[in-house]
């Protein structure tokens, strides 16, 4: 989610403005609690449970947390959360705040939740997910600008076209077209793709008016992924090649920002730390675009960065929610969405490389995340993924966020598929070891 939630949106271009925005948001959210004092009980419950868990959670080399509830049950509760967050207009709320309740519908998230809804329906046969996807698509098509772009921010808050949000919604439209073969959907997707190609910079980045804070960001690799996807599904259409070229141009620009340490420059969110969520976005976008375009250099670059994070997670049982350059620094909260995205990246890397250590790390990450999903509580809480753990962490504090549910559901769906197709035990060729003593 580019804008860090509309309420947390940093409209200014410097740190002072961001701080002022944070303070005003905090005040607005606090008044939400005054209006609905009954929200105090779940708020206190959440704070207390996170504090207890922080004290007792095992975090040492020889163990990992183990969830009692099966993945299928958790996946179902995540999807129930998403469907409950669908507003009357068809859009999906950005978050449920423990202080103010559900937010307005959020076009960007609504767009890229659509593929998750279809994936869930495919593996469970649950038609309510398809109904939700169709409602979401109708709403999204109604928001498309004549230029083909989509606006940023929460519904009704911003009339400016946004590159990132257009790319994320494009992902959803491409999937709807693949599922339904409807020409109006392809038309909408192509219009969005054409706009993205039109405003791309010669170096392959997107900056200027359509870019957040008017600057180029490496996490717009997610947009490149959407364009590569559009190129695949639009097949023999004349513009198909142009989408692919634009995707690879961006891929090349982003790959140029990878450092030897695995760190990626150019996340460029002024006034915000480098949250894991955005680092994982870069990796997901580059990896998926690299896979679609047959680029082993992209897969290698992602593998290198992902290995740094995998080692951190395996040795400390914790991924800090934000980083400084070269993955230095650390903070005492974790960004659950970023964790779920890393699980997706590791699972996809396992698919691509057969390195079981990626699968191992992802399974453990999913266990940890499963334990943090509340299975009781009012709508908006039960089955939700909080922004940070503990809930007072800096990333989306005191909120259950829809894109967190989306990425964790994606991770569990991937996990289930890979477990089913696991062949390593039978097919791994024997390794010849060095000579041993007798």
């Amino acid at each position, binding site marked *: 989610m580019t804008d860090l939630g509309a309420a947390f949106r940093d409209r200014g271009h410097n740190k002072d403005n961001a701080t002022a925005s944070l303070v005003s948001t905090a005040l607005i959210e606090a008044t939400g609690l005054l209006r609905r004092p009954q929200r105090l009980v779940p708020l206190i419950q959440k704070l207390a449970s996170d504090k207890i868990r922080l*004290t*007792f*959670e*095992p*975090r*040492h*080399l*020889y*163990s*990992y947390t*183990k969830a009692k509830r099966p993945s299928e049950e958790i996946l179902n509760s995540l999807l129930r959360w998403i469907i409950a967050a669908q507003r009357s207009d068809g859009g999906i709320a950005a978050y449920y705040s423990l202080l103010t309740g559900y937010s307005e519908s959020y076009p960007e998230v609504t767009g890229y939740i659509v593929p998750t809804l279809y994936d869930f329906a495919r593996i469970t046969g649950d038609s309510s997910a398809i109904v939700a996807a169709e409602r979401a698509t109708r709403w999204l098509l109604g928001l498309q600008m004549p230029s083909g772009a989509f606006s940023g921010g929460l519904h009704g808050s911003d009339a400016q076209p946004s590159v990132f949000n257009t790319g994320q919604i494009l992902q959803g439209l491409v999937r709807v077209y693949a599922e339904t073969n409807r020409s109006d959907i392809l038309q909408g997707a192509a219009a969005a793709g054409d706009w993205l190609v039109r405003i791309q910079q010669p170096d392959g980045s997107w900056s200027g008016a359509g870019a957040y804070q008017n600057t180029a960001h490496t996490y717009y690799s997610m947009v490149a992924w959407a364009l590569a996807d559009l190129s695949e599904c639009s097949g023999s259409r004349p513009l198909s090649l142009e989408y692919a070229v634009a995707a690879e141009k961006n891929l090349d620009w982003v790959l140029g920002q990878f450092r030897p340490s695995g760190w990626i420059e150019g996340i460029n969110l002024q006034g915000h730390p480098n949250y894991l969520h955005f680092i994982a976005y870069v990796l997901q976008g580059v990896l998926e675009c690299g896979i679609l375009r047959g680029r082993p250099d992209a897969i290698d670059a992602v593998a290198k960065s992902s*290995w740094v994070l995998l*080692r951190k997670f*395996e*040795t400390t049982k914790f991924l800090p929610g934000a980083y400084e350059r070269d993955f230095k620094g650390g903070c005492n909260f974790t960004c659950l969405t970023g964790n779920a995205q890393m699980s997706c990246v590791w699972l996809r890397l396992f698919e691509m490389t057969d390195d*079981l*250590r990626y*699968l*191992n*790390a992802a*399974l*453990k990450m999913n*266990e940890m995340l499963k334990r943090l999903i509340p299975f009781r509580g009012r709508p908006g809480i039960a089955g939700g993924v909080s922004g940070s753990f503990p809930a007072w962490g800096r990333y989306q504090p005191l909120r259950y966020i829809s894109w967190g549910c989306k990425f964790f559901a994606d991770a569990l769906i991937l996990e289930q598929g890979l*477990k089913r197709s*696991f062949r*390593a*035990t039978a097919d*791994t*060729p*024997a*390794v010849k*070891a*060095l*000579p*041993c*003593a*007798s």
Partner: protein
Amino acid sequence: MRIVILSSSVYSETACAMAVRLAESGHVPVGALALRALDSTTLLRKVGQWGARGVAHYARAKLIPHHADGPPQVKNPHLRPLLENGRGVLLSLRAVTELYCFPVASCADQNGSDSIALLKEWSPDVIIFTGGNILRKPLLDVPRLGVLNVHLGLLPEIRGMSSPEWSLLKNVPVGITIHYMAVGIDTGPILQRYEFPEARQCESLDDLRNRLIAFGIDKTAEVVAALDHGALSAIPRSDLDCDNQFFVMHEWLRERAAERLAKSRTATIAGAVHG
């Protein structure tokens, strides 16, 4: 040869068996340093790891061994020849020291200054690590030759945790490596590597691990004897920039490793029947 044993607890069967095996081969340790069984940090960590009930169960089993039905037993059946004899069952390092007369000390942190001072006082040629903290450089520098570790996998192929399980899944021969410890995990110079021929006969992963521990203790005694005679030197590592580190294996993958073990056992039995 002056030998000190480092242990995760005075109740560690591996440490007890190691001490007995060394003493029987003429190398009575000059001391043993064990982590305290009960300190607040460990307790809190264990409550998180096992739950309050699990910790209570563990404490009862360790502190009140006679509470269980029947006489106390060594859990690893492959260590019984060393720890169960006519003079009783050796369930703690203190019982072993009564037999072989060497001091046992306990500490909260093996890297702590008190521990280092005590180890220096014992002036060991070799320290044998059977469990405890991740060792820091000041401790690693204490012994004249180095700190020995038995790694339950072949180095450099399988470095890190869950080594027998990873060996099975990666189709690397199961074995052990005796090496000097360095600051990085399993990165020190290698003394000896041994393939484990009985791996195909193991009934379960726990059985495999238990047999490997017993095998490792036996081979450590041989390595110590060779070091004592100056007949063995360490091989420096050239693999340290490779990504060959493995981490604790998730239960689901562990089940797959167990399936693989069962499959190789079945194949061995079938081979024996037909061959």
